């Protein structure tokens, strides 16, 4: 029995040693790359100050083209949106962006009505992308707060990287091998952080325009607002087009709202909530007009 226990302990030790070693290297390589948005902001963006940054989920990533905005308004902007995320991740991204010593005059926060009035914040599908920075207290605390259940694979990766890397092996381990070969490769965004959906004929269902009322119940939104105030950042809330929906925001807020929920012609949608490449140009130019003429 003693021999068995000793063998099991010895092999477990070796497996954890080798496994954690591989996982650590994997995160290290990924952390030096520009594959995901947070690594891009850290390693791929040399500028320290921006006139504005666009922050949001997939709608933020694909609706406003910062290159076109900069060309039109002669500004310097960056898109730090990450798909499949919500306001809690946006708040984390903003904190992370600022913690890198970068600054911005204006924050264009792309919201969705459901997220904005969601009082409960949960871990988002792509939050694992920050795992390369889990040693950073900001990221660790975020995981620790957001993860549910007994085994917090992301948070505990601070001590045992194999937990997060094996759980998200498709998303972290294999991409790290790719990043090792091509460290400057970016995952579906350009050198300003933008992405666009192709120009294809959409198959979205027809319907009549209806109103969606929203409110500011999301605690992360309130935190973003507070952080902007603290850092002297001008907050602009941007609502991208939604097919046949008119988003109604509460009035009398102390920040600017640009509501494009109903401006887009049908053929410029990619799907119900995303615009295609022509739709992106359409929205970006409309945005430039509105931001220039308050």
């Amino acid at each position, binding site marked *: *029995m003693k*021999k*068995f226990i000793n063998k*099991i302990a010895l092999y477990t030790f070796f497996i954890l040693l*080798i*496994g954690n070693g591989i996982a650590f290297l994997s995160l290290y390589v990924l952390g030096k790359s520009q594959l995901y948005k947070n690594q891009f902001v850290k390693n791929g963006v040399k500028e320290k100050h921006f006139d504005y940054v666009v922050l949001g989920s997939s709608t933020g990533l694909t609706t406003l083209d910062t290159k076109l905005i900069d060309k039109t308004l002669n500004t310097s902007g960056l898109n730090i949106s990450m798909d499949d995320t919500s306001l809690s991740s946006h708040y984390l991204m903003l904190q992370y962006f600022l913690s890198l010593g970068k600054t911005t005059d204006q924050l264009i926060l792309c919201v969705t009505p459901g997220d904005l009035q969601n009082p409960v914040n949960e871990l988002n599908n792509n939050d694992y992308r920050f795992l390369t920075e889990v040693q950073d207290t900001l990221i660790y605390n975020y995981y620790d707060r957001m993860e549910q259940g007994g085994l917090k694979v992301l948070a505990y990766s601070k001590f045992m990287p*194999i937990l997060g890397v094996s759980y998200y*092996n*498709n998303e972290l381990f*294999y991409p790290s091998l790719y990043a090792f070969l091509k460290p400057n490769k970016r995952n579906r965004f350009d050198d300003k952080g933008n992405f666009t959906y192709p120009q294809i004929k959409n198959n979205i269902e027809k319907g009549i325009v209806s109103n969606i009322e929203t409110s500011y119940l999301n605690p992360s939104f309130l935190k973003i607002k507070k952080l902007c105030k603290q850092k002297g950042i001008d907050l602009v809330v941007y609502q991208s087009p939604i097919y046949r929906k008119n988003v109604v925001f509460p009035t009398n807020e102390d920040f600017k709202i640009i509501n494009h929920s109903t401006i887009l012609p049908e053929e410029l949608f990619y799907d119900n909530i995303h615009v295609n490449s022509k739709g992106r140009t359409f929205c970006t130019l409309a945005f430039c007009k509105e931001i220039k003429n308050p």
Partner: protein
Amino acid sequence: MLFNSIEFLLFLPTVFFLYWFVFKNQLRAQNVLLLVASYIFYGWWDWRFLSLIIASTFLDYFIAIQLGKTDVSKKRKFLLVISLAGNLGMLGFFKYYNFFVSSWIEAWSSVGITMEASTLNIILPVGISFYTFQTLSYTIDVYRKEMQPTKSFIDFAAFVTFFPQLVAGPIERASHLLPQFYKNRTFDYQNAVDGVKLIIWGMFKKVVVADNCAFFVNKIFENPEAYSSGELFVGMVFFAFQIYGDFSGYSDMAIGISKLFGFDLMVNFKFPYFSRDIAEFWRRWHISLSTWFRDYIYIPLGGSKGTQWFQIRNVMIIFLVSGFWHGANWTYVVWGLFHALMFLPLLLFNVNRSHLITKSYGWLDFAKIGVTFLVVCIGWVFFRADSIADAFQYLAHLFELKSLGLSLFYKTNANLMIFALSALAVGILSMQELVWVIKKRDLPKISAFGALLLVLLIFFMGSFKNQMDFIYFQF
């Protein structure tokens, strides 16, 4: 509780520690511990269904005691009927009630008669088909006087609920497993090491092979008409490996865990995809179920004795019952029928046992293996599809050979990665098993280095985020 869950990772060492350190050399206490642990293991899903296992245990325990007390044939038959009615009644109600009611209504509506009958919102208790068959084997063996009834309720209850194989087999025979609860068990180092290696191999099959393949299988079977013949072919082959990795992986883990507690379970799979015909496939696939049907249904029906007509009838019955055992859906019955039709020619030409005398593998054998695998794969389409119409539609699209494109597998980076992982996992599994088949092994044999490598492969190739339930839990 799943074998591949965090809870089980804590549960197993705790039971192991109590078993070998706290209750060492105390047979009765060890059996009580196994019983309590098994109830906790099962109750983790839904504690309410423990009542069914306990009821089944009480029923067969007392029936067997009564069978042991009487030689009166009529009384013995009556007792057996009570056991069969009780066990199969529970199984029938929980597993087949809604199926029979809806089939009855559909049958009448097909001739234009509308009937009203309500189905019930019945949850299928996990593993009910497995433990029901296990307890039945005990009562039937006692009835046949092939074994003595046990007087110890604890031993019997521990046998019925033995947690490593409770929910997905192997379906143990009372004559094999129950006596192991009577004997003092001493720790055997080599047995325990072999057990750990089997657990690792089973985990690899489940987490790396089955769960990765499941990603594409679920996509393709959900909407087969959207995919090319090439993609449907890969989907079919991946399902063959998904169900094999899932089910045989569970069996390997069950056997391995049992070894840690000094128990020996029967081998349930002997590398079935290296079968040279369907007869051999059924001697290698889910052996505990096929031998159960053989011993308790096929042979009592006359087996392969009698006229050809009787033989055909018996084969049809055994395969249809086997299909129906898997679930309350006509797809399983058709799957059974399909295998019966593939088996019958071998029986009629008296070549259904020819593989038993072939000593080594030649090129022709490998060609036969390929053909048999394809036949089995076609059968799996019926097993996996939601309805018979869906299965035929899948096969029709497959054999249309309209397009052989495989764009699904490289449409996105994520798809390409999961496809590569699945293909690699299937490759590793197949090559390793081929070696064991050629070496004529019944169970995997893994070196210490191999086990270490497998654990690392589980960590870095396993599908943890898209973890799937064990398929056979639903049976």
